[in-house]
């Protein structure tokens, strides 16, 4: 066996970009958003064409949230879409000038989740970037540490079906396992829309409130 030290350079192949940021001083904005969303948890504002079997424990709004005129929604829009744009700028070979020439489209909605609410694993066809903002994390439940977790599934399905003692111990970002995020109020996470994700059952006695957006870019037409 050769004992010469190797000069292996380790890098990440097939990586999935994730962007994360926090809104500082989010308390006022989140208070206003929460009050607005709770007041509109009605059939008028409910998504009339849900893509998955709806649950009474999880309210899903229509996808036009960022067309609402309320100041708190406009403020959130600026923060969330800015976060998506910043992620794109870092992950994509595109200049700010080139990005500025594109039109950024979005579908945006809110979820209010109550006890035993969840959302099935899914991704978002016909979008390129998705983001989730946390308005209210909901009660932490010590006996259910995964309560309300936003869980991203590894896109390399089946890669861990053979596991010797090294594979289960792969370090981040190489590890073959779901990535769990217990969102905190004010936190924003941005990810490619192709990534499958779910919301694990929420066991708090209060509410978990999030805003989600799907974005895609297009050439501007004169």
């Amino acid at each position, binding site marked *: 066996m050769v004992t010469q030290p190797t000069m292996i350079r380790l890098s990440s192949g097939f990586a999935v970009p994730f962007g994360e940021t926090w809104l500082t001083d989010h308390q006022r904005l989140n208070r206003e958003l929460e009050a607005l969303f709770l007041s509109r948890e009605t059939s008028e504002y409910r998504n009339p064409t849900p893509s998955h079997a709806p649950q009474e424990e999880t309210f899903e709004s229509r996808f036009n949230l960022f067309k609402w005129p309320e100041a708190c929604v406009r403020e959130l829009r600026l923060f969330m879409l800015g976060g998506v744009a910043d992620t794109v700028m870092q992950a994509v070979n595109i200049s700010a000038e080139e990005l500025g020439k594109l039109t950024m489209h979005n579908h945006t909605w809110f979820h209010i989740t109550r006890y035993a609410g969840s959302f*099935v*694993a899914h991704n978002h066809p016909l979008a390129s970037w998705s983001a989730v903002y946390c308005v209210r994390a909901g009660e932490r439940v010590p006996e259910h540490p995964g309560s309300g977790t936003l*869980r991203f599934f590894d896109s390399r399905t089946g890669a861990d079906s*053979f596991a010797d003692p090294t594979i289960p111990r792969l370090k981040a970002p190489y590890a073959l396992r779901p990535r769990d995020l217990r969102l905190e109020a004010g936190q924003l996470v941005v990810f490619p829309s192709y990534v499958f994700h779910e919301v*694990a059952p929420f066991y708090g006695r209060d509410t978990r409130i999030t805003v989600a957006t799907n974005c895609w870019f297009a050439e501007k037409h004169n």
Partner: protein
Amino acid sequence: MSTAASTLQPIFAVPFGSARLAQPDRLNLALSAGLSPLATDAQRDPALPADPLCFRSREELFEWQGEPLSYLKREMLAAMCSIVMRANSVTEEQFNALGLQARARFVIVRPNGALPATSLPLASWCVIYCVAAPDLSPERVDSAAVRLYGHRLGGMFLDAANWAMREPFHYGHHLWRPVPGEMAVFPAWLPHEVALNRGDRDLLLVIARVRFANPGAEVEMMPPW
């Protein structure tokens, strides 16, 4: 319409089989009575997170002796082998010569509980037998169902001609509703979960992972699991 002769067939298909025991009621009663009291900390798999609404036993159920577990083990493995053989291009004689290893646990999903998504490493096949299940709920179609994940990323572009493709071509998950006495067989790599149990009774499953070895290649030589 075109007048050209054409064919349509699935490629890259995932095998999924199901089976039902002939008269499972007495067996299931005995299994329920024997297993339910064993959902204790001592029998819980310590490698998995504790969950008060989803009990997962140690994966040694098939090593326990006596009836009715021995009978269940025989029936589960026989049904699984029948399905697996049909999915392989080997003769019955060749298949019967294979060595087999199986590990199993019992899982109890309580009301408002769920089994998180998982796949089973170091095995080729998974078989799930349903001992007891809550009543069906017409309003909650996925309650306590086993959801097999469809993770094909080709569905990222959808248009009017591919969003509503029929089985087995459609993008999306597959639901198998556990019914007492019935079992499902599918590849062990396939991620699966038990959706939240909205019923008022426990779901009791026996879940096994199984692997085979060619004659001469002893199963003992396979990686430890």
